[in-house]
């Protein structure tokens, strides 16, 4: 038999042996997965509490931020290599890279969350280019800063004070039942804010450039109280 054929045969044997070995290792890994766990495709790690959360990267996978008694970071196992975290004092920086999808499609993204962040201490979230879903925040103030093509979806939250600063092409909306006692909006450049499913006692707004605020009928009604007074005021 020619040497080249022997070499090809050896290569085939090495590959087969590699696949068999991989099979046994993967069997052990599969046994570690709890199939009853709804987060079976995720890996969770407990992290120290943080006040500022800085997120950047791609919008291919949504990033869920939920209020919880403990602080943890859960990542979709197959996207683990795309996640980088940095810690700077009370700031947690998250870079979640990957392919981007068009801005219009990002809002309708039904892909499972790439990262789930649970926190009880965050006071400020800055989001650059990613799609974050902020859920179930109760009785806590939040400062939200959106830049680039960031998208934020806020659902079922109650904020004494909610500040949203949006710039460039970013956009945000609300789902479920949301309440903000004091709602401060600052929209610049080509940003879009959808004010639907949000109740507020007072709204201060600063809308510049070609930024757009889309109001639902319910929100529009809120803006004019029964006495015909405006509850919304532009800020200086």
């Amino acid at each position, binding site marked *: 038999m*020619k040497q080249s054929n022997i*070499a090809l045969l050896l290569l085939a044997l090495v590959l087969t042996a590699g*696949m068999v070995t991989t099979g046994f290792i*993967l069997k052990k890994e599969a046994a570690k*997965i709890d*199939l009853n766990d709804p987060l079976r*495709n995720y890996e969770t790690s407990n992290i120290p509490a943080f006040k500022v959360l800085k997120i950047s990267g791609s919008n291919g996978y949504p990033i869920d931020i939920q209020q919880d008694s403990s602080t943890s970071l859960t990542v979709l196992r197959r996207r683990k290599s795309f996640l980088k975290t940095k810690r700077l004092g009370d700031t947690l920086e998250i870079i979640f*890279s990957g392919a981007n999808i068009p801005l219009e*499609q990002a809002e309708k993204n039904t892909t499972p969350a790439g990262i789930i962040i649970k926190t009880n201490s965050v006071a400020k979230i800055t989001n650059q280019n990613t799609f974050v879903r902020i859920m179930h925040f109760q009785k806590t103030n939040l400062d939200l800063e959106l830049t680039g093509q960031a998208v934020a979806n806020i659902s079922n939250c109650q904020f004494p004070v909610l500040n949203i600063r949006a710039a460039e*092409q970013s956009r945000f909306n609300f789902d479920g039942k949301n309440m903000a006692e004091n709602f401060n909006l600052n929209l610049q450049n080509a940003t879009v804010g959808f004010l639907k499913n949000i109740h507020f006692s007072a709204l201060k707004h600063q809308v510049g450039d070609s930024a757009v605020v889309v109001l639902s009928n319910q929100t529009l009604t809120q803006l004019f109280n029964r006495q015909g007074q405006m509850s919304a005021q532009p800020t200086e």
Partner: protein
Amino acid sequence: MKLINVSLLLKRQLKEHYQLYLLGSVALFGLLSLLFLLVHQWRDSFAGAVQNGVFLIGLFLSGGIFTATMFQEFSVPAKGIWLLGIPATAAEKVIAAIFLSGFAFLVVYLSIFYLADWLFVWLTYKEYSTTPLNLFRNGFYWLIFTYFLFNGIILLGSVYFYKLSFIKTLLALLLVLISLNYLNNFLMMVISGIENINSSTPLSGFQFEHQGENVYVTLPESLDNLSNFFVRFVLPVVFWGITWLRFREKEI
């Protein structure tokens, strides 16, 4: 092995084929521009990392065709004998072919690609804020090592098959990949005892269906790195080595 011989072989190749290479470069620029035009025209259907897609299609298509021409003399017996008769060793001839079709091609390809990409960005930046492809984003550059593996396979095919070596190599590669996929799925099912495995990647991981959801099983990080090292660095060298063995056997 003498470097001067490798350099002379490269000079011969370039001197004999420079017109074809120049025309090929223009054609490649045209092909890449056409692909960019298509993905831009139907941008709703081509969402996501379109520049990465165009880069890979161009690289593997043009790189494969170019690599297949390295030992095209073997398709005609008289020319094959002439190639074997060139006063240089088999190793020198194979190394010259690897340098030209693997490394030099990659440099030229990157230049042509970025020229077309720059044109695409220039035309679309204002409306869509397009930025040039960043090879280092998300570790995309690692796919270049897959090109070296592909290069090794096509080179091996060009010394294994006499006629239509590129087509035959692609068909053989397709057959091997399909067989590997089925064999790996079968092995994973037998070894793990999980019956509903619906997809697997050799030396990497598998996924199985559980209550309508896919569950992913992957190698631990250190072993995954080892597996990636084998595929990206060891396998291309192995294929280049077998190409050299096969070339040497032709001399006998």
